[in-house]
Structure formats: structure tokens, C-alpha cells
């Protein structure tokens, strides 16, 4: 049962344009959502998060949007830079359960074309 889905395994965007990565979830108990970025042979690194009480969170070039009614979130990167080429994982969690288990999607490989 895949509770977090990233339906686009890959995405190519030209440098300077906007990258939009999408994520859908089925578990309505998720209270918190996170995006992680992963380079080859490295562990995922935390990028940005959003609480379910918000619909938008912005950090520099990165903005995450949450649509709870549609159970959908998206990550916008603008402007896209070559260093953004990586695999991006979306994750959901409910820290109020007393543990901080993250449920991940399968990732989207973003390639920024110079």
C-alpha cells in the first residue's frame, strides 16, 4: 500500500525555468510533509517542510504548496539551477503519534539542462 506517490519518475527542466515536482498521498492522518533531495551515493538531505495547517511554505528558491482536499503537494524551484539536478523524495509523517516515522514516495529524478 503506497501511501505517498510520486507519479513522475523523471523531469527535465531548462536552467532558469521553474521546476514543479508533484506528490500525492492517501493517508489522511499525515500531519506534516517534507521534501528531501538526494545526490548519487549520498543520503537524502532535508530541503523544506510544511505543516498541514498551512498551504504554503517558502524558503529561498524553494516553495512547497499543500492542497489537503486533493491530498496533493508540490515543490516549486525557481529559478532552477544545475546544482538542483538530483532525486527528490516527498514524505509524509504524523509526529503526534509519538514516533516520527517518515513514509516516502519513490522519488522524482530532476535534471536541469544548462
Amino acid at each position, binding site marked *: 500500500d503506497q501511501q505517498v506517490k510520486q507519479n513522475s519518475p523523471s523531469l527535465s527542466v531548462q536552467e532558469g525555468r521553474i521546476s514543479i515536482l508533484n506528490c500525492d498521498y492517501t493517508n489522511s492522518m499525515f500531519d506534516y510533509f*517534507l521534501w528531501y533531495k538526494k545526490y548519487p551515493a*549520498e543520503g537524502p538531505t532535508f530541503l523544506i517542510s510544511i505543516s498541514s495547517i498551512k498551504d504554503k511554505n517558502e524558503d529561498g528558491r524553494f516553495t512547497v504548496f499543500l492542497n489537503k482536499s486533493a491530498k496533493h503537494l508540490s515543490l516549486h524551484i525557481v529559478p532552477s539551477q544545475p546544482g538542483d539536478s538530483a532525486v527528490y523524495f516527498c*514524505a509524509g509523517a504524523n509526529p503526534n503519534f*509519538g*514516533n*516520527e516515522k*517518515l513514509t516516502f514516495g*519513490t522519488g522524482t529524478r530532476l535534471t536541469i539542462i544548462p
Partner: protein
Amino acid sequence: DTAVSQTPKYLVTQMGNDKSIKCEQNLGHDTMYWYKQDSKKFLKIMFSYNNKELIINETVPNRFSPKSPDKAHLNLHINSLELGDSAVYFCASSQKDRWGGYTFGSGTRLTVV
């Protein structure tokens, strides 16, 4: 000065062997995890420990046994290795009362031949 370090980075071993992967974090976090990334790139939780106490134990064969000697260390021992155990194993840590996601190690690529 690595925050979450795992050893070894690569591990190639034969079926039936027993192996261990070590993890240490110097962030002062109280919770540590093991995640497995399989061939389909799915990152799934295996175990979590909070202050040396087992908190999460997902549906994992009992050939996998985590051990946490203290809150800065979480090791993973695997008995009787099988081909299907081949994967990348990630250790991670977090601080329970300061929710903000995990800090991951760089992973251990286990190949069973």
C-alpha cells in the same frame, strides 16, 4: 565532521553469511532509524530507537536485529543473508521534541551474491 556516519559504505558478501552495519551520530539526537532502499528506489522504515528503546519495528524478517548500545549508536546485524537483502541501507537520526525531519547517513550498499 560527519553528523551521521555509517560503516561500511559498500559490503559485498555471500548468501548465508552474517554481517553488521554500524551507525553513529554526533548530533545529540535521541532517536535513530534504519531505512532500506530497495531496487525500486522505495525508502522504507525498518526500525527506530529512542534512547536505546525500540519504538518502531516494521514487518522485517527476524534475521535483522538492531542493537543500540547508547543513544548515539544504532547497529544493524543481519543473519543468514539472502539475495533479496541486497539494497542500500540508510541510518538516520532526529530529535523527538524538535520535529524537523531526519538527518541521514550516506548509506551502505549491501550486495549479496
